[in-house]
């Protein structure tokens, strides 16, 4: 089964929840789905379809920039812009990524830990660094950040510019 | 040439105190150098153990909270004292032992295991989790090798019918057949028992550096640790002399002593670098299942041999 057929098969499995499909590279397909049906999609693709394995969950912060009047440099516009969660599934050379667009405020996704226990690491990392909450994921305490890290501060958000004092905490 | 010394000098200078301590350090150097050479490394310089010891004495003694202060200080001293007194009735360097009386074999063996007892107590005394684990391991190991080691040492004693080390030593020199040949199992059990007693590598679970930091002695620093270390070196010297005098046909001249004990050191160093660390349950299993039974039947053999020897003396070379 070469890569294109594999990708076709993946698209087939996930067809009913797909909003839009893009092709960033010839051996990859990005499938945009809604946050609500991430669980059935993963269940169909991974558990029933046995399509490859979950390689990573990436959190993306892509804000809209607007030019600030006085300082004239690009400033992040708080309302517009979006958070994205990408679930990358790899099968031989083919990579199918389920992408979910989330608003800044109340970015919530269903956790897939009940089907795939080993995903809890990726979810905890995304929760901590980008601030996407995974509903009823088994373990929620810090995976990577120090214990005395101020709550609500997500380092990988574009708005985070490091601490004022060099070595705080 | 069994010359005797006035007891004070013997006690403090020659076969006793200072000379013994320096020979303990020298033995440790030879041991570490051999192990390093087996591992294809260059190994320490000759004065390394002396430098370690003096440095430890000069270091700050940290007494952790939650320990009984007096016990914390007393234990290393007791351990060293036990090792030193054990050396008194052993024919060190081929000379006649300073004090030899009937039954000093049992006293020496008891004093030798005092050291492990002190280490066990030292570990249990502190609240630090590693030393508690180390202490339990040290004591479990003590119970496992003590019986076979003692039985192995009794073998020649029963064969020669005396409990006095110097008499056994003389008896062994007159033996036509070294005890190592007539009682091979005894020799093996004694040698491996000594390695268990000193917690040398295959049996170093109680102070496994990669596992429990330094076992029972984690909390000790400075003087206490130095005394424990030198006490263990002394035990190495005394143990090796005991085994050499029993099983390698005793020694009449210091030269005899030197080459025999060096051979034993070579064997222990080889054993140390050959095996991976045995888990404590494997060591205990090895000792109780294999060691004890073998030595027991060896003893039965000797007793049977002795009682029958009047009729079958020439055969047994008795």
């Amino acid at each position, binding site marked *: 089964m070469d890569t294109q057929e594999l990708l076709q098969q993946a698209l087939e499995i996930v067809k009913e929840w797909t909003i839009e499909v893009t092709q960033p590279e010839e051996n990859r397909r990005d499938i945009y789905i809604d946050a609500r049906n991430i669980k059935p999609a993963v269940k169909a693709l991974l558990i029933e379809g046995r399509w490859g394995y979950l390689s990573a969950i990436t959190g993306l912060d892509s804000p809209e920039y607007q030019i600030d009047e006085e300082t004239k440099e690009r400033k992040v516009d708080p309302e517009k812009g979006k958070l994205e969660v990408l679930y990358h599934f790899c099968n031989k050379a083919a990579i199918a990524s389920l992408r979910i667009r989330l608003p800044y405020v109340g970015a919530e996704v269903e956790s897939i830990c009940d089907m795939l226990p080993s995903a809890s690491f990726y979810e905890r990392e995304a929760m901590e660094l980008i601030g996407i909450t995974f509903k009823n994921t088994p373990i929620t305490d810090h995976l990577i*950040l*120090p*214990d*005395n*890290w101020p709550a609500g501060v997500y*380092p990988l958000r574009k708005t*985070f510019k*490091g*601490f004022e004092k*060099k*070595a705080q*905490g | 040439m069994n010359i005797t010394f006035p007891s004070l000098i013997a006690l403090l200078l020659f076969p006793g105190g200072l000379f013994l301590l320096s020979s303990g350090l020298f033995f440790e150097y030879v041991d*570490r150098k051999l192990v*390093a050479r087996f*591992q*294809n*490394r*260059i*190994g*320490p*310089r000759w*004065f*390394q153990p*002396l*430098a*370690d*010891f*003096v*440095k430890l004495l*000069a*270091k*700050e*003694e*940290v007494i952790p909270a939650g320990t009984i202060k007096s016990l914390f200080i007393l234990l290393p001293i007791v351990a060293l004292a036990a090792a030193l007194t054990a050396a008194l009735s052993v024919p060190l360097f081929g000379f006649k032992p300073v004090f030899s009386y009937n039954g000093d074999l049992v006293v020496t063996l008891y004093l030798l295991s005092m050291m492990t007892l002190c280490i066990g107590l030292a570990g249990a005394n502190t609240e630090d989790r*590693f030393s508690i684990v180390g202490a339990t391991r040290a004591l479990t190991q003590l119970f496992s090798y003590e019986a076979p080691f003692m039985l192995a040492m009794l073998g020649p004693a029963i064969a020669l019918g005396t409990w006095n080390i110097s008499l056994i030593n003389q008896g062994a020199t007159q033996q036509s057949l070294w005890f190592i040949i007539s009682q091979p199992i005894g020799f093996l059990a004694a040698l491996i028992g000594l390695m268990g007693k000193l917690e040398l590598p295959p049996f170093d679970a109680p102070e496994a*550096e*990669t596992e*429990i*930091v*330094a076992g029972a*002695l*984690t*909390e*000790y*620093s*400075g003087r206490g*640790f130095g005394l424990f270390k030198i006490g263990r070196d002394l035990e190495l010297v005394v143990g090796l002399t005991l085994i050499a005098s029993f099983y390698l046909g005793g020694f009449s001249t210091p030269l005899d002593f030197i080459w025999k004990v060096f051979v034993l050191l070579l064997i222990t160093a080889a054993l140390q670098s050959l095996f991976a660390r045995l888990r404590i349950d494997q060591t205990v299993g090895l000792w109780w299942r294999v060691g004890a039974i073998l030595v027991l039947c060896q003893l039965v053999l000797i007793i049977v041999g002795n009682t029958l020897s009047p009729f079958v003396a020439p055969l047994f070379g008795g």
Partner: protein
Amino acid sequence: MENLAQEVMDKLKTWARVNSPWAIHFNSGSCNGCDIEILATFTPRYDVERFGIKLQGSPRHADVLVCTGPVTLQARDRLLRIYEQMPEPKFVVAVGSCGISGGVFQGCYNVVGDISEVIPVNVYIPGCPPRPEAIIHGIVELLKSLQK
């Protein structure tokens, strides 16, 4: 007369300290490069046991703290604690440029930057990672400074 004895004692003490520096290794967020080079110094080819350097498990037994890494916020209090547990005459050797200036991780949010901000450092060994010979040279420099 007694200052002569005192002098002899001091000379003996420094001789002992110079000839048996026991080390303990702590990784405060390093990328492993320096750590495997430190370990390589104990293996047959470099073998620092020639100088009497032994890797000790417990901070109580060690004189020299060999520290690597740019001290992440998480490892910060651990580093402080291990430094306090070591008995006096203790020395710190910072191995690798991370320990000196945060190295390539300068400016990352979770990094303190250099070790001397957390504990006093006696010898810095630059390099990313420094070769085993450089590490040995650093320790020999530390020992020389003791002699003076």
